[in-house]
């Protein structure tokens, strides 16, 4: 086993032999705030992801509210305005169109980039990878912490876009040019400049202070602190000034925020890959890793290869938006019957579809970035509670790799009706059809894992089952879109909205919830209330189906997504009651999430003390690391003798067999073809 030396030398050398020396003498700031401990960073990602998820959820409620009560005074129906916001912003009237477009654009952006990706990649990756492979920490702990702290300015910039005169980005989460290239009159500048400045200043300050905390070492703690604060404040001010030039309205804040976030993602995944390749404990071969780690490994490759393309797409778009270049704007481009009146800038020669190709080259793999880690988690949880080995462990790994590979060559299925060459459409339809094959393999293997098991029902397990069940619906509805011809009718309709929410809500968010229920005892040393968790599951599962399933029907009728008043169309006005029903369910779904908040916070204080291995699971985080794991994770470096899923092995009396426990013949049994 090779550990890459810590850049700061002494603090982490020979960490395995001196685990006990750490953890006691680390000051508060270094232990909980500017920590390099992967577990603390993971939990930081968890909290920040959950906070953004609350924001994204509230934006979703606004979107649903508008769909239930669109402005339809001409039709004589009673419109109902959003409480509080309406009186504050719109004089008691219903939501204006630009606010609605902003709300759904930001709902998607916040949920995808700042909630789900930080949760499934940042939280799961950071917390679980070293624990599951028996490593004391990440390969490059400092970089790991920097990945978190440099994502904070990205988040702050995304929040700042709400403070702009023209509101936040309103061109959809895809921000297709030329719409995203248009700067609406009066959009520039901030409504609350001081608040915007402070927010960004604090974020950049924290980012620089993190670096200074480790690199300013003059000998005296207090002198170091003062110098660090001074340097960080100056740098933060300079950066905020620089950023405010490039990001002058909501849309440019959006671009710049995601470019920054891309860099932090890369720093994170470089760390994951290095850790998984170099720091597995003795005996932990690649094919003895839990599927969660496998999934995170493959996800990291996806992030590593695709994020630079997103960064390039957004950089080009930001340059266009700043009226410097014209990558995506063609000749004869007008806005409101006018050619743009900007000195020293004449658009022309660009191609709008280029952005779509670049954007989807990242964003299609991104949907697998969001779902693959939760697939791994689902495999872990289903095997644990079915008390059975995962059915077809290697096919599961190959299926993950297959999805990842095919994920790179399907991007243009988002563009079947975009005006690109129809022959290209056929090519991508074929690859898209075939990505359903590895997905099907995974589903059948999950069913195989349940078959003849000895199933224990817990909240985590129910969410895992809900995940499988919802992923099946989302996957099957994907086949409709994969067909170029059928896509003619359902493209850009609510059918797509239904599909994406079955995969991202039913998949990724259920995956995050099951991870919280499953690993909470390890993270916080206390058990969550399982009955409350099961109630939460039943409500979430039922309500999400009631919201998202009817969207298939409205989509089949062609009801456009991204339209704030569908009652303008005679053929869609009839869906008003159905939309109202979905909104009632959405509001209830939002309220029912209070259950997990109560459970989460309540269990921190009043939960039962968790034993080391409450679920009788086999993998290292349960069997080798104490609850809660100290800095350095393991008291003694674990040694692994077989795979992580040897539940119900005939070789031992119990129905579980820790990876660290040596039993004659266990490894051989795992490789038998049965």
């Amino acid at each position, binding site marked *: 086993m090779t550990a890459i030396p810590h850049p700061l030398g002494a603090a982490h050398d020979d960490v395995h032999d001196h685990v006990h020396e750490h953890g006691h003498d680390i000051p508060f700031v270094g232990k909980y705030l500017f920590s390099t401990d992967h577990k603390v960073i993971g939990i930081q990602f968890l909290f920040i992801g959950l906070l953004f998820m609350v924001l994204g959820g509230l934006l979703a409620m606004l979107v649903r509210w508008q769909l239930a009560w669109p402005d339809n005074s001409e039709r004589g129906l009673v419109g109902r305005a959003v409480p509080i916001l309406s009186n504050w912003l719109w004089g008691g009237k219903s939501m204006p169109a630009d606010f609605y477009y902003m709300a759904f654009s930001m709902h998607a952006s916040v949920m995808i980039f700042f909630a789900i990706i930080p949760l499934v990649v940042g939280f799961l990756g950071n917390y679980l990878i070293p624990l599951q492979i028996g490593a004391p920490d990440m390969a490059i702990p400092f970089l790991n912490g920097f990945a978190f702290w440099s994502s904070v300015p990205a988040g702050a910039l995304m929040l700042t876009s709400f403070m702009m005169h023209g509101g936040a980005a309103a061109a959809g989460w895809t921000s297709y040019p030329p719409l995203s290239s248009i700067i609406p009159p009066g959009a520039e500048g901030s409504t609350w400049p001081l608040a915007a400045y402070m927010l960004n200043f604090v974020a950049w300050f924290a980012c620089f202070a993190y670096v200074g905390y480790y690199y300013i070492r003059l000998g005296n703690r207090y002198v170091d602190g003062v110098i660090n604060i001074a340097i960080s404040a100056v740098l933060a001010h300079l950066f905020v000034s620089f950023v405010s030039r490039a990001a002058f309205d909501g849309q440019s804040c959006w671009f710049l925020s995601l470019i920054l976030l891309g860099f932090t993602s890369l720093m994170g995944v470089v760390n994951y890959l290095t850790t998984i390749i170099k720091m597995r404990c003795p005996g932990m071969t690649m094919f003895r890793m839990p599927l969660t780690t496998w999934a995170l490994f493959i996800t990291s490759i996806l992030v590593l290869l695709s994020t630079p393309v997103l960064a390039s797409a957004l950089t080009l778009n930001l340059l266009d938006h700043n009226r410097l270049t014209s990558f995506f704007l063609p000749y004869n481009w007008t806005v409101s*019957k006018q050619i743009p009146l900007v000195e020293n800038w004449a658009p022309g020669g660009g191609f709008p579809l280029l952005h779509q190709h670049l954007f989807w080259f990242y964003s299609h793999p991104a949907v697998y970035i969001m779902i693959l880690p939760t697939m791994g988690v689902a495999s872990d949880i289903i095997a644990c509670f079915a008390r059975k080995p995962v059915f077809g462990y290697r096919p599961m790994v190959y299926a993950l790799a297959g999805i990842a590979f095919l994920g790179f060559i399907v991007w243009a299925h988002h563009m079947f009706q975009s005006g690109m060459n129809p022959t290209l459409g056929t090519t991508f339809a074929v690859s898209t059809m075939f990505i359903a094959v590895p997905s099907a*393999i995974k589903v059948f293997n999950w069913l195989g894992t349940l078959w003849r098991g000895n199933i224990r029902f817990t909240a985590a397990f129910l969410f895992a089952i809900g995940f499988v069940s919802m992923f099946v619906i989302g996957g099957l509805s994907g086949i409709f879109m994969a067909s170029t011809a059928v896509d003619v009718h359902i493209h850009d309709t609510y059918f797509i909205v239904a599909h994406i929410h079955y995969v991202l809500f039913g998949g990724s968010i259920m995956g995050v919830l099951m991870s919280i229920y499953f690993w909470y005892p390890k993270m916080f040393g206390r058990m969550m209330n399982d009955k409350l968790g099961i109630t939460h599951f039943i409500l979430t599962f039922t309500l999400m189906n009631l919201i998202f399933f009817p969207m298939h029907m409205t989509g089949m009728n062609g009801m456009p997504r991204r339209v704030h008043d569908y009652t303008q169309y005679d053929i869609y006005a009839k869906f008003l009651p159905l939309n109202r029903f979905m909104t009632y369910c959405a509001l209830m779904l939002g309220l029912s999430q209070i259950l997990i908040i109560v459970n989460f916070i309540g269990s921190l204080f009043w939960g039962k003390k968790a034993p080391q291995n409450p679920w009788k699971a086999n993998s290292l985080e349960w069997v080798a690391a104490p609850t809660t794991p100290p800095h350095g994770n393991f008291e003694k470096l674990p040694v692994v003798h077989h795979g992580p899923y040897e539940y119900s092995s005939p070789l031992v009396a119990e129905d579980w067999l820790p990876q660290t426990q040596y039993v004659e013949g266990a490894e051989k049994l795992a490789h038998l073809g049965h």
Partner: protein
Amino acid sequence: MNGPFPRIRKGPTIGAALAVLGAAPAAFAQVNKRFEWSDWWLPPNYSAHGGAIDALFITIFWITLIVLVIVQASLIIFLIRYRHSAKRAKGHFIHGNTRVEMAWTLAPSVILAVLALASKGVWHNYRYNESEKDERTQIMVIGEQFKWNVVFAGPDGKVGKYLQFPKLSDPKFRTLDSRRARQKINDYISDENPLGKPANEKDDPYGLDDDWDKVPGRPVVIPYDRPIDVVLGSKDVLHDFFLPNFRVKLDAVPGMLGHIYFRAKKQSTVDTPIDNVALDVRLWIDRDTPGAKPGGENGAYLLADPRNANGLPINTSQTLERLARARLEAQNVANPSAQQVEEAGKQLKADLKAAGVSHIFTYVPFEVVCEELCGQGHATMRGELIVVSPRQYTNFIYKNEPPATQPARTIASSN
């Protein structure tokens, strides 16, 4: 072993779940009083190529439904059948089965390959159909925030060149300073040439007879059961031209032109007895409509606007109500009451019948939906599509003049 695992009382849990599942449709039925089962399926298809798309949709629907039922049913059965029991101390110790894996890899592969081939056929038939290449009638649709511009090809059946705006480098503007040149170009675009027709007519032989309009928002008019070639362009942002009832959709992209081919299999204009025509139903009036013939055959321009007695009105939003109001206005009745309008409408109908107009073409337009987010006014980007008989279309593009010389391509071959 039971310690950490909670015991669930099955009865109340299942009961609660069933109650929620049962209450939801009941609540929905309560909320949605206008519920119809047909709303929950594809809207009717009125195009020649759409049937194949629907058939493919239905095929995929049944395949996925069967898979869905099998998977979800086995999931539920496994959960019930293999729930924890004290009798079974352990689960079945098995790591997989290569044959089973092969089976459930190959089976979906075969099905999906067949589906991919099938959709290739339908797709190519829709996008690449060359069989009627020379008979196609072109119609150009240009998206603009937030209305559709429609250009009808003249008798030659082909539209000319559009979306070619002056450049700063043009000889005319090159000598001016940048600001003034831009101002001049913008004035020219918004006042004279909003669709960007080439300045020199020689460059644009097909465009000479086109029917275009400076103001966007005209309805799309197409002939029934004739091959149509929609030429799709955009001036500013991405728009999406979607005809739900015709299974037609394509993005309008600035800087490039798209083509979609289809054939409408349902006519909007319906020959209706005059007694059955409601006042607010829109009328299709052209030179074939009795009572609207130039020269006052049957004694009256009854269907013509009295304020515009010389021209024949092809007004795509004409209704009996409007005509009645115009009449009242001509009689100097200011602010007529609803009752007065109704009376005038009755009178108009009676006059029409007296003049021998017993039937008239009425229509309800199909809707053109913009499916691509195109800015603040996106919701108002609603267009209209009117499918008329080929004869009516000929009248329409000849602006109600008799087709004097036979055009290169005959549209008025039937009806």
